[in-house]
């Protein structure tokens, strides 16, 4: 009992360390003065309004949303069939192919970003915007495949066999039987992948050009030049979005995905 209480207190301190800074940044966003302060001296929403005055925040926010959504769509098209094949069958080279599909997580992001800049923008001569989109598709792919595979592992494939034995074609079975059953897994995958892409710095930092940048990169640039509470206000908005997405993922498939490796 004594030990348990000690452990509980220790855990409390760990959570204080994890969440305290996020709480502090939230509180400072309401500072009315021009310098970040904790606790704030005068309460005000003016830095929230300032977000909308900085044109670059608006345009990079749009870029980030478009790149994440388009990349997500493309990653789904590539990832759903792959996730299905990887979880449905056992075959030669499965381990290797599995590793290839997970590799974008293992290769250092900053190395990926640089090789994109050097070869996709440099040698392949693709426009920066396309390169940005391809890069984000690649980093979303492992998350899409992992979450959907984990959803497929709960699917009873005998239902699929039943449909086929009743005369449905493979393709028809997939769309009518399999897909609706993993719908919530797909939605959860989309949300997790979206957050990964939207928050990505390592790859995006190489993919900026005239008039092209992403939201986190714009935040980094802003922090280098100003130390006012705008970033704190943005942080609060981002945390609200994150909390909403997390709530949705929890509803759709629970949080077991995160603890399963």
């Amino acid at each position, binding site marked *: 009992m004594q030990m348990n209480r000690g452990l509980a207190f220790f855990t409390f301190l760990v959570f204080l360390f994890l969440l305290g*800074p996020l709480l502090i940044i939230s509180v400072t966003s309401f500072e009315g003065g021009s310098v970040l302060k904790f606790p704030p001296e005068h309460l005000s929403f003016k830095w929230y309004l300032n977000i909308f005055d900085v044109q670059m925040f608006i345009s990079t926010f749009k870029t980030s949303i478009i790149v994440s959504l388009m990349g997500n769509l493309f990653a789904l098209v590539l990832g759903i069939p792959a996730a299905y*094949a990887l979880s449905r069958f056992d075959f030669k080279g499965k381990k290797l192919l599995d590793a290839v599909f997970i590799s974008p997580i293992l290769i*250092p992001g900053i190395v990926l970003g640089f090789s994109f800049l050097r070869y996709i923008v440099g040698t392949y001569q693709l426009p920066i915007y396309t390169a940005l989109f391809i890069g984000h598709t690649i980093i979303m792919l492992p998350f899409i495949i992992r979450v959907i595979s984990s959803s497929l592992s709960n699917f009873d494939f005998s239902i699929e066999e039943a449909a086929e034995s009743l005369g449905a074609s493979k393709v028809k079975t997939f769309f009518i039987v399999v897909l609706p059953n993993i719908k919530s897994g797909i939605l959860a995958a989309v949300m997790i992948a979206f957050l990964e892409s939207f928050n990505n710095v390592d790859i995006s930092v190489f993919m900026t050009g005239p008039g092209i940048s992403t939201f986190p990169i714009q935040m980094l640039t802003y922090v280098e030049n100003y130390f006012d509470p705008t970033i704190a206000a943005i942080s609060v908005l981002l945390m609200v979005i994150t909390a909403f997405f997390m709530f949705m993922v929890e509803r759709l498939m629970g949080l077991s995905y995160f603890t399963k490796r």
Partner: protein
Amino acid sequence: MKTRYMYLLMLPGILFLTVFMIIPIVLTIGTTFTDGSGITLDGYLTFLKDRYFLDILFTTLRVSLLTTLICIILGFPAAYYISKLGGRMKAVLLLLTIFPLLTSSVVRSFSWMIIIGRNGLLNKMLLGMGIIHEPLDILYTPTAIIIGLVHLFLPLLIVSLVGVMENIQHDLLEAAESLGASKAIVFLKVVLPLCVPGLVIGSILVFVGSFTAYTTPALLGGKQRVISTFMYQNAITLNDWQVASIVATIMIVITFAVIACMNALARKLNPKG
């Protein structure tokens, strides 16, 4: 027939990754071994003699190692506590662990600038309490990078550990205790070995993540370079793609060496897993 159909399903993804990821990376590594006329290791040799670069490499390794150790020290007890909780409380604590994990690294690093800066919260508190008389210079040092990285990766270690700890059967612990083992012995001989897979995966994620992290050192490290910010500087600011490629290759080699070593260690400690 069936096999061919499966490979076909994976083909688009594999092709996409090959063209846009594998080939660019292999080419990046490949160029570091030539000087335009033939195969050479000169690039690496000049590097391994360069004190400035070695300094950055060892700082990065030290920072990553310390981050991993601190994450284990903080994360292991917390994960153990979470895994022993039941129902609602456990779900809440897991939500609170995953929330920071999904929050932007820019936001999380920036929050530490407010806390550990020269005029930050920590200095104000310590000065106010009379514990220190001069503000501490923590921001823009390796210590600041370590604090930021622990904050970034601790949730990752906790969720990895909770994952394996959940699967430990409590009958097993009771059996050991009924056979006369003390709580401490049960922990050391039963709980700890069963946690090894989670501990290894979690540590790999933390170490590799810290070793290659860009945002946190860029914001909290100031002039203190680590290997990723050094690579970025060479690629973008100095436009020296050859040096950047060599650094990229060194990062890949160290990353995969660490993963391989840790996996080998895991097999040794836990032959069944």
